[in-house]
Each structure stands twice: as structure tokens, then as C-alpha cells.
């Protein structure tokens, strides 16, 4: 059984995650800098480390579930584990320059 190259799969995952928006800020969670890390194992298991703009926001659980659902649907992904972290906390400096300009 063969898997797509890791980098290609990560690019696919990031592209898929760009369809998930932060409902309050209205921008996608990748360019907002909410996805801290994507680790892809050779067996197709993906570990995502992410955060939210506000700790304990009522939308947090939904955003985590959305990331899980979105990554699971990417071809080549067998399993997804999403870890939520606030260390370090999100800051506006994590946004992509393009989003920061439109902010």
C-alpha cells in the first residue's frame, strides 16, 4: 500500500483546512495561524496541533471537530488526532501577512 508523499499530503490538508473559517474573525484558520503543527506518520495517521483565538470560547469544541472532519476527508488520511493547546497562546502576529493587512 502506498501513501502520497508527506509534503504533498500536508499541502492537501492545509488546503482542506482553508475551508474552515473562524466564525468571529471570518478568515480561514490556516491563514489566521491557528494551526500550529501538522505531523503525518507513515501509516496515514495525522496529528494536528491547533489553538483558538480565545481560550474557552464556546466555538472551540466545534472548531476542533471541524478540523477533525475536514482532515479525515482528505484522501490518504487514515486517522486524525487533533490536540488543542494554548501554549503558546495565539496572537495576531501569527496571521499571514495578507490576512493581517485585511484585518
Amino acid at each position: 500500500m502506498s501513501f502520497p508523499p508527506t509534503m504533498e499530503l500536508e499541502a492537501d490538508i492545509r488546503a482542506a483546512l482553508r475551508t474552515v473559517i473562524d466564525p468571529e474573525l471570518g478568515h480561514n484558520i490556516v491563514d489566521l495561524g491557528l494551526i500550529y503543527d501538522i505531523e503525518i506518520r507513515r501509516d496515514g495517521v495525522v496529528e494536528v496541533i491547533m489553538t483558538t483565538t480565545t481560550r474557552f470560547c464556546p466555538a472551540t469544541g466545534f472548531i476542533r471537530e471541524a478540523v477533525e472532519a475536514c482532515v479525515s476527508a482528505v484522501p490518504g488520511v487514515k486517522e486524525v488526532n487533533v490536540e488543542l493547546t494554548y501554549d503558546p497562546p495565539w496572537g495576531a502576529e501569527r496571521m499571514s501577512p495578507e490576512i493581517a493587512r485585511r484585518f
Partner: protein
Amino acid sequence: MQMATISRWTLAYFGCALVALVAALALLVSGFGFPSDGLAAPRTLIVVHLLAIGWLTLLMLGALFQFLPVLVGRELAHARLTPLALVLVVSGLLFLLSGFAGLDGWDGFASEMLPVGGLLLISGFGVAAFVLFATLLRAETLPLPAAFVAVALMSVLVTALIGETLAGALAGLVGGEFSVALVTHGVSLHAGFGLGGWLTLAAMGVSYRLVSMFLIAPERKGAWPMLVFGSAFVALAGLCMALGLLLALNTSLPIVLVVAGIAAAVTVVAYLGDIAVLYRARRRKAVELHMLSALGAFGMLALGAVMLGFGLWQGTEAAIGAAVYVLVLGWLSGLGLAMLYKIIPFLTWLECFAPVMGRKPTPRVQDLVAEGRARIWFGVYFAAIVVGALALLAEMPLATRAAMGLQLVSVLFLIGQFYRARRLIDLPSPWQGQERPRLFLPAREPRRFI
């Protein structure tokens, strides 16, 4: 990791609160209560309690059930008790208003309903405070905004206890020198604990987090916000001392109230300084309408505080009444309406779109509102407050009622905007087919949202 959840009954609290606000404004416009009647007249007390309990307290409790978990990072404890608190507070308020009607001599109403209403209100606030304190106790650490809420919750209980004692005195159940002293000196303490200790401190605590969250500004930490909290604590300690003197000696010591007043003024100045820093430090350059309107409310806090100082120095009913009007309808109500303009669409979005996020495209929260329509009515609302305050100071009752009429119209329009957000009317076409949520009752099938 624990996460905050959606409070199922918050919108029911908001619905009842808005009904009370409209009823109170309609009464004021019709010439019911101050300034047509005296500040302490039963008809004025009906309007004041409709605003303070029916509108502002229900609004604040509904908001706290949703946002205290956000402040402390824990789920709401004993959430099933929140509808019980709502029923107790609403029924207590109805009895209280009936008691005031009895005091005013209305047929079929008796002043004895006052203490019954007071007992129901104490029970309702007690249940709400139990839920909120239990949530606070779940926190590993108590962030400053939550500390404000903790002190505010103690104040609402003290307010209710003083109110119940006053109700007993007005209904003739408590007599003697104590009753006279209570009615003479206790009313200002009741108002101080209620409007200052409860509503203003809770609004300050919640706004610290919300302003920072909505503007993407670094949270305020360090000595300055501690000064806000510390001076508020001194002001409340002064009120507690004055209450102790009243209970023990049937008297009042003006110097204690002066110290409390100075501490309260320091609180307001330091708090507004913090808010100004938050706005200046924001990373979100475009300010959405709710945060723009909140600026109007912060301005009203500054104006109302100055007017209250002036009013207490002057000692006239018109000046004190105008100051309380600005603080209640400008600061607290203005901030409340501004926050509802964001919170209602946000909760609606969570209910309708959050469960499908990541599976299909979702709109932004901002897509649920049309700011252009609401912008002018927020402007009209705050302008009407300034005109109404000037008319009250100038003792021009017709102009006052006209200004209140404008307020009523703008509130009705804003409620129309809240309705449109709940019914998903302003959503862009791709999402127009979305199933609509219930207007203000919780979803039929309780869901865990984490």
C-alpha cells in the same frame, strides 16, 4: 481539556429582559413614573424595578450563564437550575410590581405582595448565584474579570436582602425607628449595591474579556486593572460599613458614603482608562458596530458619573434623576444592547452552523446581521439619552418623554434586528435554506455542544 458550552436558557433570559425594557420605556413615554411622579413614588419604583430587575438583571444573568464559563474555562455548574432561577426572578418581579401598585392604591393590589415578591427574588438570585459561584469554584485560578463577577454576585444578594427589608417596612411588617431609618438611609444603599456593586461591576468584569476578545487586543494585566478592582472593593466596603451602621445604630455616617463615592469615582476613571488602552491596542482595525456602540455606552458611564457627583452635591431630584437615567439607560442598557447585537447572532451561528463546520461551507457570524440598518438606531438611542438627560435637568417633562419615545423606537428597531438574526433573514443566499432555530427557547433536543 475542559471547554465552555452553549447556555441553553440564555436566549430565554434575553427575551424576557427585552420585554421588560420595552414595557418600562413605554410606561415612561406615557408619563408613568419619574419625572411625572417623584423619585420615590410607587409608580417610579415600578419602572425602576422593571428596568433594574426585569431588563438589566435578567440580561446580566443570561450573559453570565454563557460567559462565566468562558472567563474561568470550566463548564457551567448545575446548568439545569437556570430555568428555575428565571421563573423565580420573573414571578418575584411580578409580585414586587404588584406590591408597588398596591402602595399606589390600585384596586385589587396590596402592598403585602412586596415582601412575597422580595422572597421570590431572593430565592431566584440565590439559585442563580449558586450556579455561578459553583462555576467559579471549579476554576483553577480566578482571572480578574471573574473576580469582578464574584464581587458582583455578592452585591446582588446584599441588594436583594436590603430590598426585602425595605419591602417589609413599606408593607408595614417592620416598624419603629429602624423602619424610619431604613427608608431614610437604606434606599441609597439598596441602589448603590444594585446599580454599582451588582450591575456595574458585573458589566466591567465581563467587558474586560469581551472587549479584548472582540477587538483582538492583549488582555489588561498588572497594576492598573488591579486599581480598578481595588477601588471598587473599597467603595463596596464603604457601602457595607454604612449598612452595618444602619443596622446597628439606625443611623448614617456621611463621611463613609463620601469615601465610598470617591473610591467609586476612581474605579470609573481607571476602568475607562483601561478600556481606552484596549481600543488603542486593538489588532482589529475595523471596529464592528457592537464595539462602536459600546463606545457610546462607555461615554455614558463617564457622563453619568460626573452627573451623579453633581447631582449628589446639588441634592435636587432632577439632577439625581438625570444622572441615574444616564447610568441606567445610557451606560448599562447601552452596553447591554450593543453586546446583544453581537451575542444573539453568535449564539444563533453556534446553534445553526457550528455543527456542520468542516463538512460544508459556513457563513461568518457577521453575515447574520446588516450593520447599515442598525447603525443609525444605535446613534438615535444614544442621542436620545443625552437629550433626555438635558430635558430632565431642565425639568422639561414633555421633551423628556419625547426623548424617551425616540429611545423606545430605536429599541424596537434593534429588537427587530435581533429577530432578523434569529430568523436568519439577512444571511447571504447560499445559506438561505438553513433550518431556523427557535426564537428564544432552547433547542428541542438538548445537545452537548462539546
